[in-house]
């Protein structure tokens, strides 16, 4: 049975147990959230042992090379020494703004103590002082002073509840990251881009659209934002203005319910998208938000002709512990 060496203690790993579950079971308060290898909140550093490949999936090469891995995805095959992420891998920040975007979504602005390099559309793990961690996509673009997150209020959610109801400007937090490959890479300024998301799936898309426009993207850019009801949409004025100022940018919002839609289209988001285009061959796509929507939509975009490698998807996994 493999043993985990952690902070001077030895913990035998149960059959099929992950490093995260083993440490949590033994009362070690390791930060974590999705428990599915996506959010990277449970990043730890390994030494003296073999880290299975699956535990490093999605990590930057620089982190892999230093032995970092995701505790939730690591089922050790032999003894391993694990240490928590040092402050060198985290960035100090302060809450610089809190603003409601609609009844459920809070815009959280953060200012880092030191320059924070990222691509619009990537995500970060946000750590409260006590170690509580959740990952959020960045809605800001790199030249802005502040980082911007869109935080949806989740019933019983520890981090979202704190941010919505208790956190105050100037509160210190830590950031880890950025991570993720869902971002605009200038390379072909003429290719058509399609961005689609529901709820706070808009956050990374809002960054990607503005980043693409700033970098002089010339091809058409279509942004689709879907919600159950008009009250779930947000940044409507900003996006409408952006579309007014850029002839190649098109903003379409859709809602499912058929009462007063407030100017949004009514219907399924995927239908709203696919009815517009005969073929998506040669397009690049970004799909963010609810996992079920992301998975079904990326398949439909692929079947409509988009190359599988041209689809960047970011499914927002819920926290495994509320």
């Amino acid at each position, binding site marked *: 049975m493999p043993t985990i060496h952690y902070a001077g203690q030895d913990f035998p790993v149960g059959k099929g147990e992950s490093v995260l579950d083993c440490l949590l079971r033994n009362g070690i308060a390791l930060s974590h959230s999705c428990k599915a290898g996506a959010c990277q909140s449970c990043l730890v550093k390994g030494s003296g042992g073999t880290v299975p490949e699956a535990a490093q999936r999605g990590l930057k090469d620089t982190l892999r090379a230093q032995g970092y891995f995701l505790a939730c995805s690591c089922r050790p095959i032999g003894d391993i020494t694990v240490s928590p992420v040092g402050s060198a891998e985290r960035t100090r920040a302060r809450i610089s703004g809190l603003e409601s975007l609609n009844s459920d979504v809070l815009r959280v602005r953060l200012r880092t103590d030191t320059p924070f390099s990222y691509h619009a559309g990537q995500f970060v793990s946000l750590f409260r002082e006590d170690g509580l961690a959740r990952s959020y996509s960045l809605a800001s673009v790199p030249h802005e002073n502040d980082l911007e997150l869109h935080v949806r209020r989740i019933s019983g959610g520890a981090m979202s509840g704190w941010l919505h109801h208790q956190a105050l400007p100037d509160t210190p937090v830590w950031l880890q990251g950025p991570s993720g490959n869902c971002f605009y890479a200038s390379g072909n300024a003429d290719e058509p881009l399609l961005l689609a998301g529901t709820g706070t799936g808009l956050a990374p898309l809002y960054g990607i659209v503005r980043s693409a426009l700033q970098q002089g993207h010339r091809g058409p850019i279509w942004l689709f934002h879907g919600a159950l009801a008009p009250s779930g949409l947000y940044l409507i004025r900003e996006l409408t203005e952006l579309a007014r100022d850029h002839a190649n940018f098109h903003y379409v919002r859709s809602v499912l319910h058929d009462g007063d839609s407030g100017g949004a289209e009514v219907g399924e988001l995927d239908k709203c998208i696919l009815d517009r285009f005969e073929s998506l061959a040669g397009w690049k796509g970004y799909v963010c938000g609810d996992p079920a929507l992301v*998975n079904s939509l*990326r*398949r439909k975009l*692929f*079947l409509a002709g988009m*190359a*599988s490698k041209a*689809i960047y*998807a970011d499914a927002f996994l819920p926290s495994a512990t509320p």
Partner: protein
Amino acid sequence: MEPVLATHEATLYAQLGGEAAVDAAVDVFYRKVLSDKRISSFFDGVDMDRQAAKQKAFLTMAFGGPHNYSGADMRRGHQHLVARGLNDSHFDAVVELLGQSLAELGVAPALIAQVAAIAESTRNDVLNR
């Protein structure tokens, strides 16, 4: 792998165009598979990234390229689908779509026949017989 077979297969893989040919074929083939009513339900709810990686591994093998597939892997990987009713008719459909994909990409019939023969050699493992 038998050395004689390895030489033969490397030739086929090279003739088809190697990894670039696999990359070109993956989307065409996978799109057909997902759109085909006979078999698409087996792919409901599967993660597209993982599935595309598996399709690539399968095509690499069928193209006679370097692969790590064993008969046991094939069995394990399809066990849950056999339990859901995967049978010869579905296997036939996949081989048919593979042939169509390669024809669309301009691959010569003689090479398509070789690819189909390699795919065919996995039938009993895939169907867990």
